[in-house]
């Protein structure tokens, strides 16, 4: 039986954007995209693609569909999951998707997943590096009525079930859930594989399917924000450089450690 795997992926501002290029429009409560620095696929979403590819390799027969919602996709960025080996991509592109909150995003994505047919496994990055909310996967699982297995460090496919080892601060827990289910992953699932030149060439011949909210029977009011952003600003930071000098490297290290403890940093 062919397995249908859905990966939810998000285009985000490059988290390695230098601070000097990071700007916030406080009046509009918006982050201003950095000039000349292209966005990237969210790092944990790339981990999600990697997890899906590993499941596909283990299952043998599987289709990986990547779904994303937004309004200003950069195609050479968003096609990366296809270049890595995902089979197809659906982009929900709509002006109303410009400023979705987590609830709105989960609403759109869950509708889109339903529209694709029967999804066996939905994999999401644990959180996106732009807002770091980690709300959307939980919202999708709630709306679709499927189990959510979070922070997977390994995923093993059984007969109609999946076994997931979930990272915890003091170790890990192992859960089993029936399919369909939703799994969130972070970097512990393994480093995302590189795309290949061949993969990029093949992906260049694929055109992502584009849907609007209308295609999902959603109106703008269905996804209007439930949260109100009151204030957005870059916190002021004072930088002070203090040189710790010791008799030798070991002594400098000891003095640095003492200083850090004194300042209650460690």
């Amino acid at each position, binding site marked *: 039986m062919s397995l249908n795997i859905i990966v939810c992926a998000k285009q985000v501002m490059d988290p390695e954007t230098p601070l000097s290029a990071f700007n916030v429009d406080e009046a509009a409560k918006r982050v201003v995209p950095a000039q000349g620095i*292209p966005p990237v696929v969210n790092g944990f979403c790339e981990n999600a693609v990697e997890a899906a590819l590993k499941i596909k390799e283990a299952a043998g027969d599987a289709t990986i569909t990547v779904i994303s919602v937004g309004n200003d996709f950069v*195609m*050479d*960025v968003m*096609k*990366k999951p296809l*270049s890595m080996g995902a089979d197809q991509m659906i982009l929900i592109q709509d002006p109303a998707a410009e400023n979705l909150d987590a609830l709105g995003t989960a609403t759109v994505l869950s509708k889109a997943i339903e529209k694709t047919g029967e999804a066996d496994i939905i994999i999401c990055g644990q959180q996106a590096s732009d807002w770091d909310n980690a709300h959307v996967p939980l919202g999708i699982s709630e709306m679709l009525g499927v189990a959510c297995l979070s922070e997977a460090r390994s995923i093993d496919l059984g007969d109609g079930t999946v076994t997931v080892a979930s990272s915890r601060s003091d170790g890990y827990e192992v859960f089993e859930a029936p399919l369909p289910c939703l799994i969130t992953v972070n970097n512990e699932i393994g480093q995302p594989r*590189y*795309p*290949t*030149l*061949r993969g*990029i*060439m093949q*992906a*260049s011949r694929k055109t992502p399917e584009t849907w609007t909210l209308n295609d999902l029977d959603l109106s703008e009011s269905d996804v209007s924000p439930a949260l109100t952003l009151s204030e957005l600003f870059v916190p002021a930071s004072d930088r002070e450089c203090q040189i710790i000098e010791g008799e030798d490297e070991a002594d400098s290290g000891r003095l640095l450690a003492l200083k850090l403890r004194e300042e209650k940093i460690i």
Partner: protein
Amino acid sequence: MGAQTSEETRKQIVSLVRDFVKRDVEPIANAYDNEDIYPHELIPIMCELGLFGINIPTEYGGMGLDFTTFAMIFEELSKGWMSVSGIIGTHHILSYIISVYGTEEQKHRILPKMAKGEIRGGLALTESEAGSDAQNISTTAVKDGEEYVINGRKMFISNGDNGNAFALMAKTDPKSDPRHRGISCFIFEKPTDGFKVGRQLDKLGYRGLDTCELIFDDCRVPSDNLIGGEEGRGFGQVMNGLETGRINVAARAVGVAQAALEASVTYSKKRLAFGKPISEHQAIQLKLAEMAAKVHAARLMVYDAARKKDSGERNDLEAAMAKLFASEVCGEVAMEAMRVHGGVGYTKDLPVERYYRDAPLMIIGEGTNEIMKLVIARRLLEKYSD
């Protein structure tokens, strides 16, 4: 070599190579360069990525990318560590020569393996008495039945130890006048009785990459490996291959120069002198501006030469100009980067001294810049002849 690569695809390819450089090349570059260690662990990754098949036509298992994308890949690799670009540099000269001049049998036999990196190639042209004067080679190939017997020594051969196939230039008619009509090009594959790798050269820069002497002592090469199946064509075949080599060397120069520029900008914003970052001193700003303008101009010249090659136009003039200009810029920018960094740039703590040591390779390699000037002048005089 193939149809024009789309802008969207180019961006993805550059992004991929940049990721590879950042994740796997930069962490080892300084240490391996200092110790002159070949980066064996990168080879399987480069094979998987498809970097050994960049300009090999798709029908022979390659990527069929155009030369503009080819140049961008070499630039990105060289930004991280120029020696890594050398692993696939002359490899692609061999694959280009076979793609353009090889028989169908040679293309089907060799190119798919080259595209996978199962065969890693090089160019065996230079000898101790024949570099710029390439027609002066003394290596000979004497027909004996269905084989040629090769005798001679080649010098400064990149990938000489780790490569396993070479475009070998040898004289099949030493008395020929003009001399170039007596030169043929063979696909020489290891292992072959009578062949051995001689001395590995200890170099100023371009370290980590094997640059060797190759010794041919009554080595037998099948006639089937005479490229194109016809004697006396080798000089033209290799010279055309070197035009692609000039694009790749010029692109390497842009990559190293860009790395030196970026390092300088970053450092100048952090380094304080007289109570403010040195980037706020006009003396440094003037340097950065000149460096950036030169690198930009060099890059445009490389892309122009590559675009001409892609369009099928003659590009020997543009390739020579790009190689000349970009490599000289690389040398100047690397030196300026060291001035911006001051004492720390002179140490092995930072890669700036590596950029400075690597730059001369691009000035000397793939035809010295003095030869480039002659190529340019001759072509100009030809172009404007009555």
